């Protein structure tokens, strides 16, 4: 039986009078590939901010591999790799310098960091860019470097917040393919937030987040069956427009 990578229970969050998240319950197991689908402003980024403890959840609980993010943030965060919606790599530094910086934030030795960086870069056929400055890379390459960076410390849970925004179609395909392979090979649990329906994997799980509420949380095939929809787009409309 797979162990739980992420357990979110009765999570609420407000910004002033605005309810950003309303009674959110999500469970992700090792090796799960889950798409968090929602329109802009649905609460996806807020949810990610709470999971990564940029700020604390007001009610409910978030556990990462049984470590409560509020009570044991160090152990919980050590298990997470994150790709944020906005690019967070330093444009003036080289790929290696960016990756080494991230590794140091996880207390990794330089040699181990370099080995991991080369391993992850080679998985994406990008070893040759190690000494290049981020500024010299294309948008797609930069995003892939961010994915490499998120994997540097061998996390067990990968969070991706709209990682393909602003990336061309070819790079999008590469990113999706790579993340799916990580899921299978490394048993990595993946939570991928997006508003792009074509990024939903027919074999994976789908979580529909709308106006801060989780409206659906199941395998895609089960959701299609339940809603009697031909495709994810129709199923999404079924939940959000009814």
């Amino acid at each position, binding site marked *: 039986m797979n162990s739980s990578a992420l357990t979110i229970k009765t999570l609420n969050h407000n*910004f002033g009078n605005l309810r950003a998240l309303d009674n959110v319950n999500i469970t992700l197991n090792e090796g799960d590939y889950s798409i968090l689908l929602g329109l802009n402003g649905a609460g996806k980024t*807020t949810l990610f*901010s709470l999971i*990564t*403890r*940029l*700020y*604390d959840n007001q009610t409910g609980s978030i556990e990462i591999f049984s470590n409560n993010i*509020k009570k044991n*943030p*160090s*152990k*919980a*965060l*050590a298990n*997470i790799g*994150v790709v*944020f*919606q*906005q*690019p*967070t*790599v*330093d444009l*003036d*530094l080289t790929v290696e*310098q960016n990756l*080494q*910086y*991230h*590794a*140091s*934030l*996880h*207390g*990794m*030795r330089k040699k181990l960091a370099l080995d991991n960086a080369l391993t992850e870069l080679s998985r994406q056929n990008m070893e040759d860019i190690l000494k290049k400055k981020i500024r010299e890379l294309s948008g797609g390459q930069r995003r892939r470097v961010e994915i490499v960076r998120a994997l540097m410390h061998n996390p067990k849970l990968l969070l991706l917040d709209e990682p393909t925004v602003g990336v061309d179609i070819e790079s999008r395909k590469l990113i999706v393919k790579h993340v799916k392979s990580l899921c299978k090979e490394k048993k990595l649990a993946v939570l991928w937030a997006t508003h792009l329906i074509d990024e939903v994997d027919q074999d994976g799980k789908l979580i529909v987040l709308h106006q801060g509420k989780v409206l659906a949380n199941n395998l895609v095939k089960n959701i299609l069956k339940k809603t009697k929809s031909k495709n994810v787009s129709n199923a999404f409309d079924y939940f959000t427009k009814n």
Partner: protein
Amino acid sequence: MCIFQYYLCFKGIVFRESLRFFYQRERFFSALVRPLVWLAIFAVGFRSFLGVSRPLGEPENWPYPVSLVPYELYIAAGLIAMIQLFNGMQSSLSMVYDREMGSMRTLLVSPFPRSFLLASKLVAGVSVSILQVFAFLTIALFWNIEPPLIGYLTVIPALFLSGMMLGALGMFLSSAIKQLENFAGVMNFVIFPMFFASSALYPLWKIRESSEILFYFCSYNPFTHAVELIRFSLYGQLNEKSLIFVLIFLLIFLMLAIYGYDPSKGIIAKKKV
């Protein structure tokens, strides 16, 4: 996390700041130009009628070996503190930018305690400001700003403490500022009042002759004590009162900064980042 991993993390943060400093040389030079303009134009212009003499009956306020010093020598300590003030504010500006652009998140999602991460970032910023100060002191030799050799050594701990205090203030402000555009307000309401209502450009006893209220305001201005700590340490002396003030303000600003970035209580928790 073991102590060695803390060391690796600290080293990584300092190294990254150093690299950014190396790649953004314009920032380094522009930070130098500001005090040099004050020294080369303002101070030289005023030197003919603005020498500063030892205050009567207050020997503890006078670190210089002679009774009358030219104006540019007097304001050198203030200009050094100005470098650190602007560096601290520039760091906080970059933190607001980093937060808006997202790169601050990389730091904040590290498994190390947030207070440790923020303190490491602060030390990294201060190290850069100390390099800027020494570059300034080297150029200032052309204006006969020549503290004793020992002063170049004794000023380092003073620069570290004053830089930490001003950096912590900047860090707290960065946690309170919602958008980059609001930073202009910091210039008007923090930097200028702090700098002008201090002993950077004129001695406190001269201010007292004009306004008792302003004198008291300046006496409790943390920037005044950063200036005085630096001024005395440049001549191998310790201004104990200023040291205590700087330590107290450092503690207050650091606690406020840590509070500001606290994920549950701080200002950052009350707004979207």
